[in-house]
């Protein structure tokens, strides 16, 4: 009745929760972590245990991406729960949170169960669904928070759209308190964004494109923080992108409010200049902004104002992007570039490696009460073996995602996933040879 056991030896063990950063080994037994440490297998690995030589590379908890659009149900030609799961694994991500803005919208218990069933069938990355805050993302009637949470919804959002109506937002934050649930907001005042299709500023003006001002994010975050103060709810800003909004969150945290936020890699890696000559692959909401805003996102990650890094993985087919800027779809795929782009924060000296990993693992897991993202005895063996330094060029054509809409094609990056393990089973192995460290 003994479960299969695997020993990961010669590893650099990294656990952001405990601060562990040491050479050692880790043993999995079945789906769980049985043991790990510096002295484990110091006298060799006993018979009957499969051995994986990590060659000195980093072994950390698998990444947790709390913001992923899987497009199923409704737009399976862009991405499915299965293909999104494969994309995640290739990026070193073992847990993904699916956004509810599918067709139909994930706003009732049976649809939560549908997502969970499809994820089980796919046997890929773990999928933790978010449910909609309002029925059909209509912005009016709140969904059955309690029953949805019981069915497995880990948080609530109307992402893609903001909850514009202040009364609805107040009630959502207030009612969610009953079950201590998190409301994640796509913070944007749509009337201020107007027909904008990129960040307001010199580049938009030169291109003759309508701009989305920074204030459209800030106004919404400011309003919501007032409502959090009033209701005592738990509030999270999705894909934060402006210096002012980061500052609002920083001050709200200092005042003890239950406010958190996440940032996407493109918002700390690119600016509106990367839109270049109408590159629709660089169109997303919120848009790429000025370098000052980009730097403020880095600063927010450094000082902990920004709790998590999340991709806002948004697959689109070519036809949705081969359009004039104003009509092209918003969003980029991100799962397969999450790790190397986040590691740029480490390679450029902004953050220690463990801090970067914290925002990719235990931090989002804590926000959502997920039992993942840590190296712990008895915890699920969701692991990532990665080379933190290897240089390579992003090639979107090789993405596992069904969609290739990434502005990072050809970007030189450092660090990549070598092996991704979910519940003790290796589900992804890089097709590049594992070199010695």
């Amino acid at each position, binding site marked *: 009745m003994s479960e299969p056991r695997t020993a990961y030896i010669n590893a650099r063990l990294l656990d952001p929760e405990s601060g562990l950063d040491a050479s050692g080994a880790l043993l999995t037994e079945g789906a769980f972590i049985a043991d790990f440490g510096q002295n484990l297998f110091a006298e060799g690995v006993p018979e009957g245990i499969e051995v994986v030589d990590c060659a000195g590379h980093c072994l950390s908890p698998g990444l947790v991406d709390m913001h992923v659009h899987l497009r199923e149900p409704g737009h399976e030609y862009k991405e499915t729960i299965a293909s999104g799961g494969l994309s995640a694994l290739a990026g070193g991500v073992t847990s993904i949170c699916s956004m509810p803005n599918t067709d139909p919208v994930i706003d009732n218990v049976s649809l939560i169960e549908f997502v969970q069933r499809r994820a089980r069938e796919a046997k890929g990355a773990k999928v933790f669904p978010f449910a909609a805050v309002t029925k059909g993302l209509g912005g009016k009637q709140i969904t059955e928070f309690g029953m949805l949470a019981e069915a497995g919804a880990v948080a609530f959002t109307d992402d893609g759209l903001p909850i514009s109506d202040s009364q609805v937002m107040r009630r959502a934050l207030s009612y969610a308190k009953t079950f201590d649930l998190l409301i994640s907001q796509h913070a944007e005042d749509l009337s201020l964004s*107007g*027909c904008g299709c990129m960040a*307001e*500023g*010199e580049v*938009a*003006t*030169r*291109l*003759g*494109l*309508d*701009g989305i*001002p920074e204030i459209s994010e800030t106004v919404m975050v400011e309003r919501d923080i007032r409502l959090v103060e009033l209701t005592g709810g738990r509030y999270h800003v999705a894909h934060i992108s402006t210096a002012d909004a980061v500052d609002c969150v920083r001050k709200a945290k200092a005042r003890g409010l239950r406010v958190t936020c996440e940032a996407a890699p493109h918002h700390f890696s690119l600016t509106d200049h990367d839109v270049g*000559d*109408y590159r629709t692959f660089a169109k997303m909401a919120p848009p790429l902004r000025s370098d000052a805003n980009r730097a403020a996102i880095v600063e927010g990650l450094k000082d902990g104002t920004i709790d998590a890094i999340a991709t806002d993985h948004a697959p689109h087919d070519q*036809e949705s992007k*081969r*359009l*004039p*800027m*104003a*009509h*092209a779809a918003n969003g980029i795929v991100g799962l397969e570039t999450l790790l190397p782009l986040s590691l740029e924060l480490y390679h450029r000296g902004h953050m220690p490696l463990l801090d970067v990993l914290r925002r990719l693992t235990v931090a989002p897991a804590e926000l959502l009460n997920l039992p993942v993202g840590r190296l712990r005895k008895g915890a699920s063996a969701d692991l990532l073996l990665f080379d933190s330094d290897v240089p390579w060029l992003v090639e979107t054509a090789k993405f596992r995602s069904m969609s290739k809409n990434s502005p990072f094609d050809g970007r030189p990056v450092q660090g990549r996933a070598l092996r991704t393990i979910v519940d003790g089973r290796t589900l992804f192995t890089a097709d590049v040879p594992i070199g010695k460290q």
Partner: protein
Amino acid sequence: MQSQSRPNTLAQRDLLGIDGLSPDDVSAILDLSESYVALNRNAQKKSDVLRGRTLILLFFETSTRTRTSFELAGKRLGADVINISVASSAIKKGETLIDTAMTLNAMHPDVIVVRHPDAGAVRLLANHVNCAVINAGDGSHEHPTQALLDALTIRQKKGRLDGLRIAICGDILHSRVARSNILLLTMMGSQVRLVAPPTLVPPAIERLGAEVFHDMREGLEDCDIIMMLRLQAERMQGTFVPSTREYFRYFGLDEDKLTSAKPDALILHPGPMNRGVEIDSTVADDITRSAILIQVELGLAVRQACLDLLGREPAIS
């Protein structure tokens, strides 16, 4: 007009904007335009520099003067000219744009002139064809031949393009004419002022080298050239100015405000004019001050010069 043997002296295949042209390019286009101005005043106006060439005018937005001007320019150069007007309701989908481009491309045209309501759409189309493409206006982005004809008008009337003080007044925000003119006139060494209420000034426009004024009398002070822009109600989503009446009172060009400018200041307007909205009729029709009809005449010559230059190289197959 024997230019068949001469190569296209521009560094590029397409004319998508002023952005990308050098001062030498601009001077070369204007010099060539002058020769067409002379030709157009003859009884015999035809040349054969584009004989055997095919010119397609593809307009996704209604246009009278620009389309007519290009059509006449093509015909006077001896090209076969095809006109395609696409009703704006039928072009909401951009697939149509790329499909249209590839379809037309298969017929081996030599030059395609495109106007489109979306900024960047002309470049998108140009990426999918093998022939030269001229931007006849894309959204609020650029309208290079308009800026070139304005420059030719100014050069003829003032004898130069450098050291002038030029006020561009009105709906800068929605104006491709303004953007192309700011780029061209600052590049040629003139000082550009923008006069408009803050709601009609695009953010960070001063980064293009222009100075912004919200008081028209102040903005017009000592100006050599006054360029009036049409209030583009069709591009406006929501309220930018409370009423045309109020707009005219503060930003319309009338005799009174005109006194702030130099006594010999020249008035330009790309047309079509909204009389009583951005310009008073007495000012518009004063032939000693207004160059509006000269602009139309020179516009034809400028388009002949552009077609001539870009049509010289045979289409790449």
